[in-house]
């Protein structure tokens, strides 16, 4: 089954698409898999748990195929193309109707890099399969709004929060204002705009190791912007960027906590 969702449709997409999607969705309860990402699996399980809790609350059960490992983004962005990791992703997730990923950069890598990696290895068949699996892979905010058709998940989070739209989510995936629409509907939240919000935090995977001085200069400006908002919590849809900014904030003891979008959306007045 293939979901009829207009991928690049702006928030006001055609009604026909919406109706079609809803029909497909309702007709057969989708089998949806969670791709936790290697980083969340290894270091930030709370983002994964929150994604599961949130989607279960919305009536969408998730499966977590244990054969999954990593999408290969870290390798690819460092110059190492690993067709085996692409093949693993495709093999593991091909049977599902949709795959939800709590990371803009991993979803971006799956949709935009997997085919290139397969082609570089002269594996056209894998490229074709990767494209199909990529087309049903959704970043969390896309899944909520485009597939489950909700921008109000009934969350409660009475804190001052600022949101950093990660580079790959806005520029590679084009999630637009989806995360902000979701956050705006959270009860009790005080959402403050992050100055120069669309500027990169300087992480860039191995960029932070290969060019530490430039990376640190970018991070310093991002932290200054975060602190200027007076927020208690910095939120983003990607734990990798948050690991970077959070690592910097922790070092200077800024007292700002970092939370994944899923963690805020999973939060309710009865606890998460």
């Amino acid at each position, binding site marked *: 089954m293939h979901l009829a969702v207009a991928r690049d449709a702006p928030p006001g997409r055609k009604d026909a698409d919406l109706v079609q999607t809803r029909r497909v969705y309702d007709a057969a309860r989708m089998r949806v898999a969670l791709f*936790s990402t*290697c980083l*969340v*699996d*290894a*270091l*930030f*399980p*709370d983002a994964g748990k929150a994604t*599961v809790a949130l989607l279960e609350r919305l009536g969408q059960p998730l499966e*977590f195929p*244990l*054969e999954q*490992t*990593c999408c*290969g983004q*870290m*390798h*690819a*962005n*460092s*110059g*190492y*193309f690993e067709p085996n*990791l692409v093949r*693993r992703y495709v093999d593991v997730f091909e049977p599902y109707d949709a795959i939800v990923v709590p990371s803009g950069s991993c979803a971006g890598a799956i949709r935009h*890099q997997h085919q*290139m990696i397969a082609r*570089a290895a002269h594996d056209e068949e894998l490229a074709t399969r990767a494209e199909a699996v990529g087309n049903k892979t959704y970043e969390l905010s896309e899944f909520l709004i485009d597939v489950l058709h909700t921008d109000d998940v009934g969350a409660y989070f009475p804190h001052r929060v600022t949101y950093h739209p990660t*580079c790959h989510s806005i*520029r*590679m995936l084009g999630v637009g204002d989806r995360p902000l629409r979701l956050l705006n509907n959270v009860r009790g939240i005080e959402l403050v705009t992050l100055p120069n919000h*669309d*500027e*990169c935090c*300087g*992480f*860039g*995977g*191995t*960029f*932070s*190791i*290969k*060019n*530490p*001085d*430039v*990376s*640190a*200069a*970018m*991070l310093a400006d991002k932290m200054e912007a975060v602190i200027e908002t007076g927020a208690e919590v910095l939120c983003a849809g990607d734990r990798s960027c948050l*690991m*970077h900014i*959070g*690592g*910097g904030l*922790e*070092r200077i003891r800024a007292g700002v906590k970092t939370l994944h979008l899923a963690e805020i959306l999973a939060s309710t007045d009865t606890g998460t």
Partner: protein
Amino acid sequence: MTTTGELIWNDEGWPGPDFAHNAKRAVGNSQLRRNVRKATTTIRERRAGLVAETPDWQELRHAGAAIKDDVLHHLDRYLEQFEHAATAKGAHVHWARNAQEATQTVTNIVKATGHHEVIKVKSMATQEIGLVKALETQGITAHETDLAEMIIQLSHDRPSHIVVPALHRNRAEIRRIFSDHMPDAPKHLTDDPHELAEAARRHLRRLFLKTKVAVSGANFAIAETGGLLVAESEGNGRMCLTLPETLISVVGIEKLIPTFRDLEVFLQLLPRSSTGERMNPYNSIWTGVTENDGPQEIHIVLLDNGRTNALKDQIGRQALRCIRCAACLNVCPVYERTGGHAYGGTYPGPIGAILTPLLAGVDKAPELPFASSLCGACYEVCPVEIDIPTVLVKLRHDAVKAKPHRTQDATFAAAAQAMSGRRRWTAALKLAPLLRAVKHGAPPPLSRWTRTRDLPDPPHQPFRDWWTQNKK
């Protein structure tokens, strides 16, 4: 000098494209960071305003990319068409495979005129082949007439931006450069921009009136008519293109557009993207020789210098769509903090990080594709939709394949191995608690992280263990 001329600066004082090294120095220079940030922010905001008022901007970008792709797919045909058309209009067309052939051709033409001085229009192609230096070794003095290029030339500096080459200089520095190096500078020059501009104007006017040979590049070469176009802001280009007796233009073979009509697209894209203007103050188009009007001897040197190499790269070839607007530099968070010199070659910024390795060979500049956080701001503003992040990743792949890095190769191979199956991955996850010991200070190369950031606290258990215990 290498056969690629000035694409990469390998001479003394310029350690070439060792980006991390160059960037470290640049980041430490707070005056430079302020200068660059101020200039790029101004142009960036002007551009954004103009793009917002252009309702068909995205369609224009598609059109620009499509026209250039057509040219690149049929380059052989368009080049011959251009040569025939230009020759029919009285121009002499020359072909140059590399920097050396191009500089030799230009030198020969200038020598044949019997003159020893030329005036120059700002041009990336002549920069790339190192023309000014090459002419100098043959006893020919080339005067840059673009104000910023003149500042660079007078101070024996190098450009740091494609459109605003002296962006790293402030006006106090410029006053000093004029006073020290401009022979006819007024005695008591101040920092006043008008006064500085007037001094430059008087200096240049004398050159325009006496010099009989000019050298230019071209923004566009029109295959249909054999015409060339130069877009500029100061009018110095117009002077160079009309007053001398001989005009020599060095044009990269990717500068072609099929028809005159295609300018409709590019003359909307270029000024908005480059200087943040609706129109360039001067658009000069000349087509061969016009009898008794302007230069009576017209030469065009069509330059390859690595372009056909770039064309072979299926993913990288889109870089040849570039119209040198520098919009990608102005939005790049890396460029903003390092300035252009850190890229160690003619083309700085995101476009330089892909163009230099594509033209010169990735083995000559293996670090440049890594000079980016892959944030994608460059792609978003590119008027011809060059997917710079994707090309960067592809070139990283080429760089890694071209030269072994023992430790790094082994680390990534080990990680791939650990991720190659469920059992191995589950075993690898057990190593996470080791992070605790190095949270505030890890050994190299992770020390480059912990110098300014903490590492995360390892979790109580990996996500999959929680899943297996609670959900399965």
